[in-house]
C-alpha cells in the first residue's frame, strides 16, 4: 500500500515540475536554514564544554559601586587568590592570571608575537588542555613555559620543542616543559597560545610586583575550581564581603562573586549587580528565526497542497469509492509529505554543505556538518519527520474529508471559506518576512548611525605598536627622531594605552565642589607631549600640553564629559587632585570614542607621564603611500628593536572592529530576511499559478465581455496585495516592539522612524507585485476562446 502511495506521489511530483520545485526547494531551503542555525546554536551552547572541569570552574568577579549603579568587573586584586585558596575549603584550585596578552617570543632567529597568559601553576590542571608532550605540572618552575601545538610548529617547525629555550619580550628566557593541542575555537581560551609562570611575570613587571599585596589594585583575573558538590551561589555569598570586612574598605564597596564557566559565554552581561543574560538572547532569537523559517516552508507545502486540492479531489473520490477509509487517505497524504520532506532533507544536506563556508564567514565560526555524529542524524531525521508531519497535516485532514459523490460528479467547488486558512497562512508568512526586513533595516541603521558619530580624533594614517621589549623604551627618543627624519611620518608619541580602548580608570580623584559621597570612575590616560598632535584631537578650550611649560608635568587635560561631570563653568586653571598630587587644568578636548561607539564617552583625563608608556603612536604623513611608509618605519624599528618582529595595528581597522558584533547580527538578520522572503515568494508564486488556473474560465468570460489585460491583472493581483498589506499591519507593531527593545541595549541609538516601516512596506509590496504578476499577466493575456472551449 505504501508503495502505491509513494508511487502516486512520485509521479505527481514528476508531472508538476514547478509545483515540486517550489515545494521541495522551499522546504529544503527552510531546512537548511534550520540546520545551519541549529549547528550555530549547538556551537554556542557547547562553548567551553571542552574543559573537563566545565561544571566546577568559575571566574571571580566583583560588583563595585562608583556612583548610583553597580558595575561588574573581572579585574581583581592579586591577594584575593591566596585568600580564597587558604581560607575557603570550598575551592579545589585557585589561580591568578594576567589577561591574555601579546608577547614577543624569540628562539634562535625566529621571532613571533603571540597572545598567551601568565598563570599560577594550577591553571593547566584546572583548564585541562590536551597535552601532546609533558604534563599539567609544567609550570612548576619559574622559568618554564607550556606552548600550543601551533606555536610549537611556528617556532621549531619539525624539531622537538621539549626543553627548547624561548626568550619572552627580550626580557627572560624560559624552557618549554609542555606542548598542548590548541584550545578549540569554542573555548574561552582559544587565543591562549602559551602559558607561562606567574612568578616570572611578577619578577619582570613592576606594577604586578607592587600590586601583589595590594587589595585595591584591580588588574588581574582569578580563576577557581570548586570541589565536587559545592554550590556556586552559596560560595559566592561567602566570599562577597571579603574586602569590605577588612580595614579601610574602599569607597567603591566591592562585592566578590563567582561567575561559573557554564555561563561565561552565553550569560556574560551584568546590569546593576544582576546577570541579564548576554549572547543567549541572540541564540534564542535566531533559534526562533530558524524554527519560523522552517515553518514558512512547511506553510508553502500546506498552501500549495490545498490549492492543488481541486486537482486531487478526483483521486480522493476514486479512492474512497473503491473503498479507501479516511484514515487510509490521511496516511497516504502523510506518506506523501514525508517523501517530500525526505527529498528536501537530502537536498538540504547538499545546500548546507555548500552554504556553510559562507555562513561561517558571516557568523565568524568554524562550523562543519557533523556527518559522523549520531546525535546530529537523530535530530536531522526528527526534524525531517516533524517537517513532513507539520507540512502534511493540513492537506491530510482537508483533502481526506472530501465527499466522493461531489468530487466525482464534477460539482466539487471549494466553499467560500476554503481559501481562508490559506490566506491566514500567507499573512503569517509575510508578517515574518516583513518583521525580519524591518529588523535588518533597524540593525544597519543603528550601525551606520554609530559609525557616523564624530569620534573626536583622526584615525586616518594612524598606527599603534605595543612596546613589549625594553629596547623600545630605552631607545624611544632616538626612534622618534629617526622616524621623523624618514619624512614619511608626521608625528610620533607614546601613551600608556591604546587610543581605541579605555585602558584604566580611577576613583581616587577629587576637585573643588565634588560631592564627598560620590566616587565616579574617570578614565585615566598617561601620554607624552606629542600625543595630541599625533592623534589629532580637538582642543575646545585652553591649550595642548607643551614642552615649553615646565609646569606641564603637573598639568591635566579633560575631555568634555569629564568637564561636565566636574561641573566647572570655567575649568581652566582649576585644580584637580589625583594620586596624591595636584594638577592644573590647562585644556578641554572634544570627547573621543575609546569605548563602545554605542555608548556615551566616559569622563576621561590626560596627564603627561613618560615612564608609563606602553604604546607608540605614529601618524603617517599623508604625502607618502602607506606601503612605502611602512617599509621605512620597519627599517627604523629593526635597527633599535631587533629582537621583535615588526608588528603594528591600524587604528581605523581596530575602530571598525568595534562594530563587528553588531554587523554580524545585521548580516545574519539580513541573511534570514532574504531567505524568508525567498521562501514566501516561492509559495506566493505557486499559489498565484493555481489561482490563475482556477479562474481561467472566469477570466475568459470577463475578456469576452470586454475586460482588458490591465483589468484582469488588477483583478488577480488585488487579492494578494491586500493580504500582504494585512501582513504589514500585523508585522509592524511586533517589529516595533522587538526592535525598540533591542535598541534599548544602546545608549547612543536611533529613533524608530516611520520611514523604516515605509521602506519595508514598499519593498515587500513591490516584491509581491513582481511575484504575482508573472502568472497574472500570463493569465490575462491568454486567449479566452481556449479556456471557454475547453469547458
Amino acid at each position, binding site marked *: *500500500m505504501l508503495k*502505491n502511495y509513494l*508511487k*502516486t506521489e512520485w*509521479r*505527481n511530483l514528476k*508531472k508538476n515540475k514547478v509545483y515540486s520545485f517550489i515545494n521541495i526547494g522551499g522546504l529544503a531551503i527552510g531546512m537548511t536554514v534550520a540546520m545551519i542555525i541549529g549547528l550555530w546554536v549547538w556551537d554556542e551552547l557547547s562553548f567551553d564544554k571542552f574543559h573537563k572541569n566545565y561544571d566546577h570552574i568559575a571566574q571571580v568577579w566583583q560588583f563595585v559601586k562608583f556612583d548610583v549603579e553597580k558595575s561588574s568587573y573581572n579585574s581583581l586584586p592579586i591577594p584575593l587568590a591566596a585568600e580564597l585558596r587558604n581560607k575557603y575549603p570550598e575551592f579545589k584550585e585557585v589561580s591568578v592570571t594576567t589577561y591574555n596578552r601579546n608577547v614577543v617570543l624569540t628562539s634562535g632567529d625566529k621571532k613571533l608575537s603571540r597572545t598567551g597568559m601568565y598563570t599560577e601553576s594550577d591553571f593547566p590542571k584546572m583548564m585541562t588542555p590536551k597535552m601532546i608532550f609533558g604534563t599539567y605540572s609544567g609550570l612548576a618552575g619559574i622559568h618554564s613555559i607550556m606552548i600550543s601545538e601551533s606555536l610549537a610548529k611556528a617556532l621549531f617547525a619539525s624539531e622537538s620543542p621539549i626543553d627548547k629555550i624561548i626568550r619572552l619580550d627580550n626580557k627572560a628566557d624560559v624552557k618549554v616543559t609542555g606542548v598542548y593541542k590548541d584550545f578549540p575555537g569554542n573555548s574561552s581560551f582559544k587565543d591562549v597560545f602559551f602559558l607561562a609562570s606567574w612568578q616570572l611575570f611578577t619578577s619582570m613587571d613592576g606594577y604586578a610586583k607592587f600590586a601583589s599585596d595590594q587589595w585595591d589594585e584591580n588588574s588581574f583575573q582569578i580563576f577557581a575550581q570548586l570541589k565536587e558538590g559545592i554550590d556556586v551561589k552559596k560560595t559566592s555569598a561567602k566570599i562577597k564581603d571579603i574586602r569590605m570586612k577588612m580595614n579601610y574598605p574602599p569607597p567603591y564597596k566591592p562585592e566578590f562573586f563567582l561567575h561559573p564557566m557554564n555561563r561565561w559565554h552565553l550569560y556574560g552581561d551584568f546590569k546593576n549587580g544582576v546577570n541579564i543574560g548576554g549572547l543567549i538572547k541572540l541564540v534564542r532569537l535566531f533559534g526562533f528565526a530558524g524554527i519560523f523559517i522552517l515553518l514558512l516552508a512547511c506553510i508553502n507545502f500546506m498552501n500549495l497542497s490545498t490549492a492543488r486540492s481541486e486537482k486531487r479531489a*478526483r*483521486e480522493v*473520490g*476514486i*479512492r*474512497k*469509492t*473503491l*473503498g*479507501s*477509509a*479516511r484514515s*487510509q487517505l490521511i496516511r497516504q497524504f502523510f506518506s506523501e509529505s514525508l517523501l517530500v520532506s525526505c527529498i528536501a532533507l537530502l537536498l538540504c544536506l547538499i545546500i548546507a554543505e555548500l552554504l556553510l563556508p559562507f555562513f561561517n564567514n558571516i557568523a565568524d565560526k568554524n562550523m562543519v556538518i557533523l556527518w559522523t555524529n549520531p546525535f546530529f542524524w537523530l535530530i536531522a531525521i526528527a526534524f525531517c519527520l516533524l517537517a513532513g508531519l507539520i507540512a502534511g497535516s493540513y492537506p491530510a485532514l482537508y483533502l481526506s474529508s472530501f*465527499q*466522493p*459523490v461531489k468530487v*466525482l*460528479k*464534477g460539482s466539487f467547488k471549494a466553499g467560500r471559506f476554503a481559501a481562508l486558512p490559506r490566506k491566514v497562512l500567507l499573512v503569517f508568512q509575510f508578517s515574518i518576512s516583513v518583521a525580519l526586513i524591518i529588523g535588518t533595516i533597524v540593525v544597519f541603521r543603528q550601525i551606520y548611525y554609530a559609525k557616523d558619530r564624530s569620534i573626536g580624533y583622526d584615525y586616518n594614517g594612524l598606527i599603534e605598536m605595543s612596546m613589549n621589549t625594553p629596547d623600545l623604551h630605552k631607545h624611544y627618543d632616538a626612534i622618534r627622531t629617526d622616524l621623523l627624519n624618514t619624512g614619511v611620518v608626521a608625528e610620533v608619541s607614546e601613551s600608556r594605552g591604546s587610543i581605541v580602548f579605555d585602558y584604566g580608570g580611577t576613583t581616587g580623584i577629587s576637585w573643588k565642589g565634588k560631592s564627598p559621597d560620590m566616587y565616579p570612575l574617570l578614565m585615566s590616560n598617561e601620554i607624552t607631549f606629542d600625543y595630541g598632535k599625533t592623534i589629532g584631537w580637538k582642543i575646545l578650550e585652553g591649550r595642548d600640553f607643551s614642552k615649553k611649560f615646565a609646569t606641564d608635568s603637573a598639568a591635566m587635560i579633560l575631555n568634555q564629559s569629564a568637564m561636565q561631570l566636574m561641573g566647572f563653568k570655567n575649568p581652566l586653571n582649576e585644580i584637580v587632585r589625583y594620586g596624591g598630587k595636584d594638577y592644573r587644568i590647562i585644556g578641554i578636548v572634544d570627547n573621543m570614542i575609546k569605548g563602545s561607539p554605542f555608548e556615551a564617552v566616559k569622563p576621561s583625563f590626560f596627564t603627561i607621564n613618560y615612564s608609563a608608556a606602553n604604546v607608540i603612536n605614529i601618524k603617517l604623513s599623508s604625502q607618502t603611500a602607506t606601503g612605502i611608509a611602512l617599509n621605512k618605519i620597519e627599517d627604523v624599528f629593526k635597527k633599535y628593536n631587533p629582537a621583535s618582529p615588526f608588528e603594528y595595528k591600524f587604528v581605523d581597522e581596530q575602530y571598525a572592529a568595534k562594530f563587528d558584533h553588531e554587523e554580524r547580527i545585521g548580516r545574519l538578520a539580513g541573511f534570514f530576511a532574504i531567505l524568508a522572503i525567498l521562501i514566501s515568494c516561492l509559495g506566493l508564486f505557486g499559489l498565484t499559478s493555481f489561482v490563475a488556473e482556477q479562474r481561467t474560465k472566469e477570466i475568459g468570460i470577463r475578456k469576452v465581455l470586454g475586460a482588458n489585460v490591465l483589468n484582469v491583472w488588477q483583478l488577480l493581483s488585488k487579492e494578494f496585495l491586500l493580504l500582504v498589506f494585512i501582513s504589514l499591519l500585523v508585522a509592524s507593531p511586533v517589529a516595533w516592539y522587538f526592535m525598540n527593545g533591542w535598541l534599548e541595549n544602546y545608549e547612543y541609538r536611533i529613533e524608530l522612524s516611520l520611514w523604516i516601516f515605509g521602506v519595508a512596506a514598499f519593498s515587500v509590496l513591490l516584491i509581491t507585485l513582481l511575484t504575482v504578476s508573472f502568472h497574472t499577466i500570463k493569465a490575462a493575456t491568454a486567449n479566452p476562446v481556449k479556456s471557454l472551449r475547453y469547458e
Partner: protein
Amino acid sequence: MIRTANLRKIYTTDEVETTALNNVNIEIKQGEFVSIMGPSGCGKSTLLNILGLLDNPSDGELFFLDNEVAKYSERQRALLRKENIGFVFQSFNLIDELTVTENVELPLLYLGVNTADRKKKVTEALERMEIMHRANHFPQQLSGGQQQRVAVSRAIVGNPKLILADEPTGNLDSARGDEVMSILTGLNEAGTTIVMVTHSPTYAEYGNRIIHLFDGHVVTENYKEKFHV
C-alpha cells in the same frame, strides 16, 4: 439484494432546497440487470450513488444485503462498498498517475489482498477484458474504449456482487458502447447484479427491467421476459 422504502434525498444549498429523490420504493434482486432512465436532473445519479452507498438518503430506509444501512457512517459504508460493489463511471475515473495494472490493483489493496493473489486477480481481470497488452500504460495513453475496459476490470477485480454503472457508454462512440454493453451483459450472465444509469433507450434494453425516473419519482418499472432467476 437492495430495497428502498420511501427514500428521499434533499439537497440544501444556501437558500434553495432541492428534492432530488422523493418517495422512491424499489427492489433490486440478486442477478438482475436493472437500467435506470430519465431526463437530465431527474435524480438518476443521486439514486445510483445512494444504492452504491456513496451517499446517505435524507429520509427513508435502505436495505443492502438485508441490513438497514440508511444511517451508516462513512466508515461503515466504505467497508460494505469495498467488499460488495464495483463502480463504472461515464468519465472512467482512472487515476492518471497510476498505470493500468496499478489502477486495477487499487480495490485489492484496500481489501488487503496479498501481493501474489493481487497479481493473479489483476491479470485475470485484464485478460477477461482483453486489455492485458496495455497493462503498463498510463490512462492518458489509452483510447476511451480501452479506458472504460480498464475501469470495468477495476470494477470486477474484487469479484463484487453488485456493479453500478453510471452512463458507462456516455463518452464512447457506438462501436465502443456496444462493446461495453456486451461486457456488462456477460458479467450479468455470470451472476453479477448490475444497475446501470443511461440516457440511451437502446442500451437500456439490455437490462431485464427499466426503471423510469421523473423529477425524483419512479414513474414506471418495465419487467422483461429475460428475467430469469
